[in-house]
């Protein structure tokens, strides 16, 4: 029993997204594909322990899911879409080589991150359809109610089915912007894991592992595109430092004082390789640039120093292409650390008040810059504001100790 269960679970992890993509790519009915697939998994768990695990579990699951889809389609034959489902099921019923089915996951990723789908639901949609994560796990990571997340996912899938969104790889002229949306959605999954430094509670831990899986998938599916490699490199550089972000008693450790011996060498080496490979395309990309910035930080594990002028150049380049608040604030922080706190203060003060009002990294950076300028009152005021915007107790404790405020 446990063998069959393990094989079924392994097959589920490895091929869930492939099977959903394949089942849904013609009908665009993701929900029906997921239902059919979960029926197929349930049947597998019932049948495999008795009759043994099939030679090709994936192909078995696909056939079972298609049979389920065609049953559902016949039962719902009044519906206009039913005919498509029957056509789909019968078209694939006899296939000479079941192991060689196509990988439609890239199309599925592009559908999930389509501009007609609300930006806030793209990442959850990807996590559910490609990785098979359940709504409550996704909801926990995004800190929303499971019922609300479930509803939003259902609504997005209905829009994909009924509004004529096509499962296709975008043409050349829209490829870059559409790919940027896909990458952004994957990066958003990674960020849920990153903000939760503690990661102590397993149920609300972030999705960084899932994001890295999606990053690897994109690199494999689009080997010629440099930006997926840039994104994967960026995530690996950050992930490599995770063990050093906490000291033994759970306290927060900022990047510049982290013990580099705790960083994962393997991940850093993999990231370096990806970034080198991406740079051969000689096309500027936001994620390559951000990865290069993290590469400079990670160099400290070899050289023992941080090369600040290189960081400033990279942030200048990034800010030139991507004038986001995060980039501008980080750039100011780097300029302050490299010795020009007066310029950093000037840059921070140029940012519009309504945008920085509740942006925690701005207030952390402001506290840091004002302290360097020996404006201790200004630093404490900013630190108090930063603390009020910080959710993580360890980061709050670090800030209040560093700036001597409550």
């Amino acid at each position, binding site marked *: 029993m446990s063998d069959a269960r393990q094989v079924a679970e392994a097959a589920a992890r490895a091929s869930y997204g492939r099977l959903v993509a394949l089942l849904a790519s013609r009908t665009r009915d993701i929900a029906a594909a997921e239902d059919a697939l979960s029926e197929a998994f349930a049947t597998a768990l019932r049948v495999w322990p008795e009759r043994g695990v099939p030679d090709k579990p994936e192909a078995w699951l696909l056939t079972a899911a298609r049979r389920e889809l065609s049953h559902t389609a016949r039962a719902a034959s*009044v519906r*206009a879409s039913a005919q498509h489902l029957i056509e789909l099921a019968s078209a694939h019923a006899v296939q000479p080589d079941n192991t060689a089915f196509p990988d439609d996951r890239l199309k599925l990723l592009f559908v999930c991150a*389509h*501009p*007609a789908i609300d930006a806030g639901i793209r990442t959850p949609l990807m996590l559910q359809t490609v990785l098979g994560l359940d709504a409550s796990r996704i909801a926990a990571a995004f800190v929303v109610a499971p019922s609300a997340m479930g509803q939003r996912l259902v609504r997005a899938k209905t829009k994909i089915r*009924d*509004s*004529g*969104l*096509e499962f*296709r790889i975008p043409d050349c002229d829209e490829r870059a912007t559409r790919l940027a949306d896909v990458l952004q959605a994957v990066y958003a999954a990674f960020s849920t894991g990153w903000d939760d430094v503690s990661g102590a509670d397993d149920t609300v831990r972030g999705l960084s592992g899932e994001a890295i899986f999606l990053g690897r998938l994109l690199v494999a599916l689009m080997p010629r595109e440099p930006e997926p490699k840039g994104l994967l490199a960026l995530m690996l550089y950050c992930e490599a430092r995770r063990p050093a972000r906490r000291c033994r008693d759970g306290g927060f450790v900022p990047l510049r004082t982290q013990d580099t011996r705790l960083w994962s060498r393997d991940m850093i080496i993999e990231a370096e390789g990806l970034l080198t490979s991406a740079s051969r395309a000689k096309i500027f990309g936001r994620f390559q640039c951000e990865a290069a910035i993290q590469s400079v930080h990670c160099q400290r594990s070899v050289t023992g120093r941080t090369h600040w002028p290189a960081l400033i150049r990279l942030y200048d380049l990034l800010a030139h292409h991507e004038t986001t608040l995060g980039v501008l604030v980080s750039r100011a922080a780097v300029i302050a650390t490299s010795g020009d706190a007066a310029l950093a203060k000037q840059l921070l003060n140029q940012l519009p008040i309504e945008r920085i009002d509740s942006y925690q990294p701005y207030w952390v950076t402001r506290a840091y810059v004002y302290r360097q300028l020996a404006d201790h009152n200004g630093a404490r005021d900013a630190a108090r504001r930063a603390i009020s915007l910080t959710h993580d107790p360890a980061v709050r404790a670090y800030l209040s100790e560093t700036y001597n405020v409550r």
Partner: protein
Amino acid sequence: MQYMLMYTEPESKFAERNDPKAAPDYWGAWSTYIGAMSAAGIVVNGDGLQPPHMATTIRVRDGQREVQDGPFADSKEQLGGYFVIEVAGLDEAMTWAAKSPSAVYGSVEVRPVLPPMKP
């Protein structure tokens, strides 16, 4: 699939329709756009609409007819016309929406048309 493209325009653009200086450009842009859609063979039907101040909005509440002079919602952009087109999917419908004159100065809502109800 069929989609309705709903073109909304600001007050200033409705005014251009009857402004001797601006009208030729205004109507010229629309006829170029509509000509391109016709040439592509995607038009099911469509029309421009008279300006919002010509609208009358009707509600029946508790059996009583309530009549309002003007459009149903008072917003900066108002419906100026619509086309129903037949295309392969949403991407193509969005492309046609983006080509319209009002995409630049107003907005275009794209909605899939419900298939006809079964008898």
